[in-house]
């Protein structure tokens, strides 16, 4: 099969926050860059982020990046790499000011500075002086404001977008470096080899492995799938964040900013139950803690509603003015998806799959780390990963609210800068026809499979299994069975059929290609979860209820063939003292 070819210095896969921040950096320095995005960039899932971006600006109250670092390390349940966390927290104020200079319409405080609100897991003076106020916001639409601002900057810089193109697989050069990607134009079905010296994966999350998720339908872990097929192991895939407040039924996100502004959770008795679980931080404890507490309340028969299957988020005491000014989007969503106006009535909420802490292992420059057969680590030449698909790891076992938008811009920028440093030293990669053929395999499999089941049932079965066996609480027995079921589904998927093989804007074809990627995410999640015999952060086991620092301060790695390996957590920050693990209470 002969396909056309185009050439760039750098190709970025994904037009969300991290991809566009990387693109800006490369574009403005005159290197040729193409951004491949399966949706028009402003439709990327960054748009759904609500509450804000965390950085120690100190606009509302005294603050310090070092305190932010402490909170993030503690929030990660000591699975985060402290060098990367230091780098992110220190860079925080600068990247937020940059966004402001780009025009992001932040809300303002009375002095005209960027408005900040309290978020979960934030403290002053290393946990000693109560709640910090650290999350910069544009009302409750910060992700929308951020994504549009970054897109606008790329319009200004005339970045080349391949909008509504889908990346199928990475291409390796004869030396083993990454040398571009095979992509398909969704509109006309044309295949193209986009050759480049470096590829930056910025493909976002993969929450579609769960039945109930705040994630968009496009969040299918395409970068995870492509990397696994290149032999790269995924790191810490057992760590999935369940956001405490998804709207019961639809799973639509309700920002933690609601609790930051003073909202709180109630059980069926009207009790503010978080006071029992987290006496100090209460409703602003870390997300894993709040989600577990809610699940326990529901389990103990204290849930609300006819089926006692949710709790309430109460906001009415904040008053109509504050809700309209600070949480207007939440009010709209609550009225649309729960049929309640939070000015008068509490919102029914339930912990919902929200964020993948794990992903493609990278260093703090975004370079992807590969593990050789002898277990040694090396940098995979020509490949970077940024944003949710990457595991730097700054979130460890549990991400703090507002740290994900920060992650996008800090590491999007860092990767861009690193690419610029390196790009002149990289010669044009040599690619063999076999390498290109490899990149077409998956496309051809879907094209050629004729007699089998349609694929969409496999997706919904996968989502059920992940929801039931790999949710907020996990046990070995169910996970073992769950993994076996997932492995069977994986086999069925290889034989499944694409019912519509037309060329023009065939969204079924894209869904089929996405499902291959989701399956990689689901299997690595299942295997990593099964293998980690402790409870840490978001990974909460009923058969191993305690954190086991002696054996488990290490990153899980899971390969495409289900093999598990481990690598050290970097406990050594860049310039400050390390934060040794202590018991995590809020």
């Amino acid at each position: 099969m002969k396909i056309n070819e185009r050439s760039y210095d750098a190709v970025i896969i994904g037009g969300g926050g991290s991809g566009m921040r990387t693109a800006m950096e490369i574009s403005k320095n005159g290197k040729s860059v193409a951004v491949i995005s399966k949706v028009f960039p402003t439709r990327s899932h960054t748009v759904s982020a609500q509450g804000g971006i965390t950085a120690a600006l100190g606009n509302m109250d005294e603050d310090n990046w070092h305190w932010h670092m402490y909170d993030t390390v503690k929030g990660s349940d000591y699975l985060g790499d402290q060098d990367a966390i230091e780098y992110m927290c220190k860079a925080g104020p600068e990247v937020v000011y940059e966004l402001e200079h780009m025009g992001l319409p932040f809300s303002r405080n009375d002095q005209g500075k960027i408005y900040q609100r309290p978020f979960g897991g934030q403290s002053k003076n290393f946990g000693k002086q109560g709640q910090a106020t650290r999350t910069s916001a544009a009302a409750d639409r910060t992700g929308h404001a951020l994504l549009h601002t970054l897109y606008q900057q790329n319009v200004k810089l005339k970045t080349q977008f391949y909008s509504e193109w889908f990346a199928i697989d990475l291409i390796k050069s004869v030396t083993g470096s990454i040398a571009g990607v095979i992509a398909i134009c969704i509109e006309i079905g044309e295949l193209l080899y986009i050759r480049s010296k470096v590829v930056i994966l910025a493909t976002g999350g993969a929450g579609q492995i769960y039945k109930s998720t705040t994630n968009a339908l496009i969040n299918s872990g395409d970068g995870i799938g492509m990397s696994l097929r290149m032999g790269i192991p995924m790191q810490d895939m057992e760590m999935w964040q369940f956001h405490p407040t998804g709207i019961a039924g639809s799973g639509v996100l309700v920002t933690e900013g609601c609790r930051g502004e003073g909202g709180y959770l109630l059980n069926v008795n009207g009790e503010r139950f978080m006071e029992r679980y987290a006496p100090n931080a209460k409703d602003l404890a870390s997300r894993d803690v709040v989600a577990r507490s809610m699940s326990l309340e529901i389990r103990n028969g204290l849930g609300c509603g006819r089926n006692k299957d949710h709790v309430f988020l109460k906001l009415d005491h904040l008053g109509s003015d504050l809700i309209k000014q600070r949480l207007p989007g939440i009010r709209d969503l609550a009225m649309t998806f729960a049929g309640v106006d939070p000015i008068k009535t509490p919102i029914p909420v339930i912990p919902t799959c929200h964020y993948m802490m794990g992903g493609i292992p990278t260093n703090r420059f975004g370079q992807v780390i590969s593990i050789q057969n002898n277990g040694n680590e090396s940098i995979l030449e020509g490949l970077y990963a940024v944003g949710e698909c990457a595991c730097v790891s700054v979130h460890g076992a549990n991400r703090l609210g507002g740290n994900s938008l920060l992650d996008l811009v800090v590491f999007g920028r860092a990767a861009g800068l690193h690419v610029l440093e390196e790009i002149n030293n990289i010669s044009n990669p040599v690619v063999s026809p076999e390498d290109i053929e490899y990149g077409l395999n998956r496309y051809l499999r879907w094209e050629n499979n004729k007699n089998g089941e349609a694929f969409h049932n496999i997706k919904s079965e996968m989502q059920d299994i992940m929801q039931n066996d790999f949710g907020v609480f996990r046990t070995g027995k169910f996970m073992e069975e769950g993994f076996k079921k997932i492995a069977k589904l994986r086999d069925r998927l290889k034989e499944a059929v694409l019912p519509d093989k037309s060329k023009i804007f065939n969204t079924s074809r894209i869904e089929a290609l996405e499902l291959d990627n989701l399956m990689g995410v689901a299997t690595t999640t299942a295997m990593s979860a099964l293998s980690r015999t402790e409870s840490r952060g978001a990974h909460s086991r009923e058969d191993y209820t305690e954190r086991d620092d002696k054996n488990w301060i290490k990153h899980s790695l899971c390969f495409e063939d289900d093999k598990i390996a481990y690598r050290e957590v970097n406990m050594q920050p860049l310039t400050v003292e390390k934060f040794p693990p202590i018991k995590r209470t809020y």
Partner: protein
Amino acid sequence: MQDYEINPDNFSGVMLLDALIYIKNEQDASLCFRRSCGEGVCGSDGMNINGKNGLACITPLNSLSNHVTIRPLPGMPIIRDLIVDLTNFYKQYEKAKPFLQNSKPIPAKERLQSPKSRSKLDGLYECILCACCTSSCPSYWWNPEKFMGPAALLQSARFILDSRDDSTLNRLENMNDSYSMFRCRSIMNCVDVCPKGLNPTQAIGNIRSKLIKNNF
């Protein structure tokens, strides 16, 4: 036109988008439409629902008649089924130069902006580029190449009214012809259909009076 018959009890979800996904999965895999966030923020699934543009993901099925007629957004070239070609729509958006322009040196921290100045952006910055407004606008149907359309003009207003932007005169001059903005006839279809409750007609009026006051 193609007919599908469905029973809402057979699938979970209560929105029109859930019904379309059900049809695609169970009845007709070839039915194509754009969709992503499912909560009215990404702007992918704009379509014409019983004669009025809206987003399928935030249109409850129980707000619709038993017989629902769905068409692609009007006034735009159709690629397939409910998917239209938005190239010209995006071109007009870019014509608004939708990025902050400020010629002063960049300060060490944020540029200050009072809450009052910032509130002028409310009702403008929230646009999700779903194209419901522009594709409902008769002036745009007539002159899609020359009239920027309500979505792009809303963006113009968003930057003209931003106290941090100092390119207002250039922006106004850029629209000072008989088509770019002045083709707006205040028909207000844009206001009627905007799923985010925004008011492009008002924004256009605002720029229009600024332009006239500046005596171009």
